[in-house]
């Protein structure tokens, strides 16, 4: 095909030369082969280029096909020679750090990935280059005798959440969740990038995210075991828990016992940050300056123990500090403990979870008179899975209200959850709460909830 088209085009070129150039025949005869040759090389060059482009396209398509089939790119076997070369290149690169790392860790730290990873679990995705898109809808009914409670005795489409998740590049992945709360303007619940390929067992996050205080606070509302958050969490961090815009770094601590130890440090703008307007716009009056104390600092340490194949325990400690130049100093210490029982050699799906968290809060309002408040609170709940689709549980709450002297809240909250498949669940619960925050201190609350998720199969946090 190609050669024929060259011949045809050469013939055409020759004709063109004959007709267009009114030169002596001899000159033409002498010149034609040269011109033709020049044209020929030009043609061949173009064809070569075309073939090269096609080859590249085929290669790219093959790559895409491989990607679609979920195969990693054909890996290059590391020969001795390549290893040496790699060592040479590594030696030429700026040193990463002293080599005090655990077994297996060294490999990660010393050798930057030959073929950087795309991201966790995004191997076979039902979409091509689209992020995984998910939607969660949370529908509730709160029945109560207490008229001081908001949205009582009516249906509420409490929250709609849209999630987008995908790798950003070979080094990071993005997770973003936009929430539409009933009666509120849409907001970003979380939107952050996680850097997965850092050396030294590190991982970093940038963006807006739920801060790593305790265990329950990290969960989105639809992933909670009960319809509302524990009273102690609400008293400390508000109805939706604690999140912030900032950066965080976590470190999987290598240790001789191969024990899971994770420490996390995070810095965010502040507690209850609500900022208006664009960053950097001119202001009429200068804003109060910010110091390092204006930020909120969160630290979290977590470990996990397999007692045996069927029983395990997770423990954590959290710390939060925020001492803004104007306003209240806050320090919160937290402890969390989770016990799980799940017999692995069993028929059916029985399992049990028992989780408790304690909060110890220190506040200094810098006001005249009584200004320092030390309060504490906590919750505990047990949840038993009866079978493939049913759970029963009870939560017990007790907390002092931070920033008050002696104001308390406590409650008991039995509930039942039915989930035909993991993408939707019905929950019914009865909650008794006695709160010093309300004039009518006692309230009986009946919660009805239906929650559903659509979109790709999500992986479950532990």
């Amino acid at each position, binding site marked *: 095909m190609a050669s024929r088209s060259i011949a045809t085009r050469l013939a055409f070129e020759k004709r063109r030369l004959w007709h267009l150039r009114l030169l002596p025949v001899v000159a033409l005869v002498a010149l034609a082969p040269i011109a033709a040759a020049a044209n020929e090389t030009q043609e061949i060059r173009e064809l070569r280029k075309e073939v090269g482009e096609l080859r590249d396209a085929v290669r790219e398509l093959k790559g895409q096909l491989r990607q679609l089939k*979920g195969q990693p790119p054909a*890996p290059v076997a590391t020969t001795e020679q390549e290893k040496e070369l790699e060592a040479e290149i590594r030696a030429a690169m700026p040193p990463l750090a002293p080599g005090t*790392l655990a077994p297996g860790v060294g490999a990660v730290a010393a050798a930057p990935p030959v073929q950087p990873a795309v991201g966790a679990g995004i191997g076979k995705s039902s979409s091509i280059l689209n992020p995984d898109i998910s939607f969660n809808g949370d529908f509730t009914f709160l029945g109560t005798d207490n008229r001081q409670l908001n949205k009582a005795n009516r249906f509420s489409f409490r929250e709609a959440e849209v999630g987008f998740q995908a790798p950003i590049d070979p080094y990071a992945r993005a997770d973003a969740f936009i929430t539409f709360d009933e009666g509120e303007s849409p907001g970003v619940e979380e939107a952050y990038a996680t850097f997965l390929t850092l050396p030294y067992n590190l991982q970093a996050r940038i963006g807006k995210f739920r801060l790593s205080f305790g265990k329950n606070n990290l969960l989105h509302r639809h992933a909670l075991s009960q319809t509302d958050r524990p009273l102690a969490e609400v008293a400390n961090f508000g109805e939706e828990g604690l999140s912030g815009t900032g950066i965080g770094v976590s470190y999987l601590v290598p240790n001789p016992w191969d024990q899971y130890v994770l420490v996390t440090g995070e810095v965010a703008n502040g507690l209850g940050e609500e900022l208006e307007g664009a960053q950097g716009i001119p202001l009429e009056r200068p804003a109060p300056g910010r110091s390092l104390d204006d930020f909120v600092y969160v630290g979290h340490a977590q470990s996990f123990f397999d007692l045996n194949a069927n029983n395990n325990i997770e423990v954590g400690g959290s710390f939060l500090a925020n001492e803004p130049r104007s306003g209240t100093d806050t320090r919160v210490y937290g402890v969390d403990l989770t016990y799980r029982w799940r017999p692995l050699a069993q028929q*059916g799906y029985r399992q049990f979870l028992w989780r408790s968290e304690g909060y110890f809060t220190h506040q200094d309002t810098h006001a005249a008179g009584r200004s320092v408040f030390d309060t504490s609170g906590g919750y505990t709940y047990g949840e038993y899975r009866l079978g493939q689709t049913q759970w029963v549980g009870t939560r017990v709450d007790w907390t002092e209200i931070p920033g008050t002297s002696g104001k308390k809240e406590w409650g008991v909250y039995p509930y039942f959850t039915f989930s035909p498949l993991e993408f939707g669940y019905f929950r019914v619960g009865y909650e008794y709460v006695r709160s010093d925050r309300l004039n009518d201190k006692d309230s009986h609350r009946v919660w009805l909830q239906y929650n559903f998720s659509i979109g790709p*199969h999500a*992986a479950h946090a532990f």
Partner: protein
Amino acid sequence: MKKMAVAGRRAFALVGGVLLLAAAELPAPAAAKLYVVTTTPDLAAIAREVGGDKVEAESLALGTQDPHFVDAKPSFIVKLNRADLYVKRGLDLEVGWAPVLEKGARNPDILYGGRRHVDASDGIAPLEIPTGVLSRALGDVHPFGNPHYQRDPIAAKTIAKNVADGLIRIDSDNRAYYEQRRDDFDRRIDERLAGWLQELAPYRGAKIVTYHKSWEYFTARFGLDSIGEMEPKPGVAPSPAHLAELINLMIAQHAKLVIREPFYPDNLTRVVAEKTEATVVTLPESPGGVPGTDDYFSFMDYIVKQVAHALQETKGR
């Protein structure tokens, strides 16, 4: 209350101190064997065949466990952090739990596309890739096709190839060793497969019922006919209406064998079997699922023997 805050602070300082000590005391790496971490035991069993004494293979899920629903325990993150090679079944079998572990592991090479990542399903032609509109109305379907290919011995050879490729990728010095062991595994599979086929040959076309749609590769290889499942749709718990339908179907088609994996409830399979005069056999999803099935050959042996035995028993009924 002040006391409690102080106590909290002390506890926190203590935890921090212990962590710092832990971080300071690091052992010298003495990794003589390659540490292969797999999601399911079938892959670990095959990795041992291929890797021989050069590897230490460990599965995250136990053979007695439903591989769709494994807790993403933090202790697994530590294993993946140390893994020299990570092998998964693929086809989204582990989608509900493995991504959390992979993301937490801080071992970039084991992630998809990395050189320590092995998708054992590469080169397997998946059965039952959903066609038409795919939605959860069909249950918790596996969108890339059926991932329960481990009970097809021919697929086991593909797993062995993928594992060998992975081992050679990270340990090319021992290429010949892995290739020889892989070829040896293939040869033994061919030998044993002939026997297994022979053992089940008398029951060609026999109709069976399974709990989950996890026997399609096995029935295709050994010429059995799976006519239905206990689950009305993948992942959905059996409903009375569906079971009534299934019982009628089994009676009409003379299906006399119900297969369930050890992790599925047995009360309903018993009811179905009683009503249809069928036999229930409990067969492992993966090696180690029942005692004495720890390597791939004893695992397949057990399954073939049990199926043959049950079909022989029910022949007259």
